[in-house]
């Protein structure tokens, strides 16, 4: 069984911008180990010479004319913001 460690789960939680209690970390470690363990079945398949599918349709860059069109007004863009100030989204200071 591929063991996922508590430390790995804590690292992934940090990358995912999630925080957990000790007990939750424990639970996630168990559940993720099980799912990852299950995912190991994929290794039964030889995929050495198989191209990965990123997308089922063969779409490349889709371009359009760069014309100015009406877009969302500032007031509307801010309508659902939990906190705003001077017509902008408000966040805690990121610079000292």
């Amino acid at each position, binding site marked *: 069984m591929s063991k996922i460690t508590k430390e790995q789960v804590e690292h992934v939680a940090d*990358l995912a911008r*999630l925080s957990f209690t000790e007990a939750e970390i424990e639970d*996630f470690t168990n559940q993720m180990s099980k799912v990852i363990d299950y995912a190991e*079945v994929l290794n039964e398949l030889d995929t050495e010479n198989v191209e990965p599918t990123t997308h089922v349709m063969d779409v490349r860059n*889709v371009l359009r004319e760069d014309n100015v069109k009406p877009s969302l007004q500032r007031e509307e863009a801010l309508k659902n913001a939990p906190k705003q100030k001077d017509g902008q989204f408000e966040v805690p200071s990121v610079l000292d």
Partner: protein
Amino acid sequence: MSFYDETLSSLHTKIKNKEVTITELTEQSFKRIKETDDKIHAFLTLDEERALAKARELDEQEADNLFFGIPAGIKDNIVTKGLRTTCGSQLLDNFEPVHDATVMNRLNEKNVVTVGKLNMDEFAMGSSNENSSYATARNPWNTDHVPGGSSGGSAAAVAAGQVPFTLGSDTGGSIRQPASFCGVVGLKPTYGRVSRFGLVAFASSLDQIGPITRTVEDNAYVLQQIAGHDQLDSTSANMEVADYTSALNQDIAGLRIAVPKEYLGEGVDEGVKARIQEALAKLEELGATWEEVSLPNSKYAVAAYYLLASSEASANLARFDGVRYGVRKEGEDLLDLYKKSRSEGFGDEVKRRIMLGTFALSSGYYDAYYKKAQKVRTLIREDFEHVLNSFDVILGPTVPTTAFKVGENSNDPLTMYLKDILTIPVNLAGNPAISVPCGFSDGLPVGLQLIAKPFEERTLYKVAHAYERATEHTKVKPEL
């Protein structure tokens, strides 16, 4: 008047002949919702005042198209301007979109009356509706059982006769599985056939919006209205939309059906198997032929899917950070604000998938998990291509079982994931598939799944409609 006795076209005739007003029709929808929704919890938000105002306005006009004045319910991950859209998540409890999804524009231009937003597993992650942050929607055939998911509310509402049609979304079976559990018709279109603009993204390479209806005919009408290229979705297919309704009432003599042995094998309930074999016999009677085939890589689909869908979800759900919309919890600094807002706002299953996806995409594991799953996805696509080179449709059950009891599987994510084993491969391959009612097992509906080549929705409607005309399954209704 009851929606059980009507189709879109019979309703349209009644509206045109002034046998019923649009106001009466809308009132009927809200009346039925009020009678039944305490039991089934299909709706999260009702838009009664605006719907009735629109109905009164429409009553002053000429009914110029089939959808004119028809009440509809919309899955709550499809954005509706000015109407709360939660995605079944308390994180978006107060979110009021400032624009409409493209599918909403397509319905609104025909004057559909939106009555409200439908319950779902949080951010479409689930197969039972038990992951809704609000209430678990219930199966109208037996309210101790789940309606399926993630579009559980969308299927339950149609099955309960609350509205003539709804829209759902399908990433790994989220339209077909609840349609199967609730005894209604649900179609997942070919990837790219319906615009995803305004569908809150779960896994962008898999998500598709599709119709849930009581009959195959109605389903074809709804797809006809919502399908087509959209400049606002660069993954929408820039090709002409076929005439779906002309595929109805056709003969299926000579149709070649493939039955994958993996779809009737281990893990499929005897009752489900029996109904599928009866359906096959019925289609044979109608002139179709069938052969057993193999989709050898099917058994790898669930593992590949959970890696790929979770990876895409972990990226898509990064936008919920407590700054632009949704729940915000203040923190010591910006990073802490993100973490607190997300940790309080998301439910367990969503966190589980974000964690799995972040892991699969993280440095050192990307090749072993994410890329490996993408390669397996190629093999699964090739399985379908290969079989559909010699056959018109692939046939099997939609789900290996009937609707399970609320609480029965909720403690074991892996067992729950395996319920989607017959629907997930189709999303990975991108093909269209439909679930149609094919009878009952222990009092609960069984769904027949038909899968066709990409952009061959016509074939699905042709076969499903021939089957529906030859049987009585869509005429049965639940006691509520």
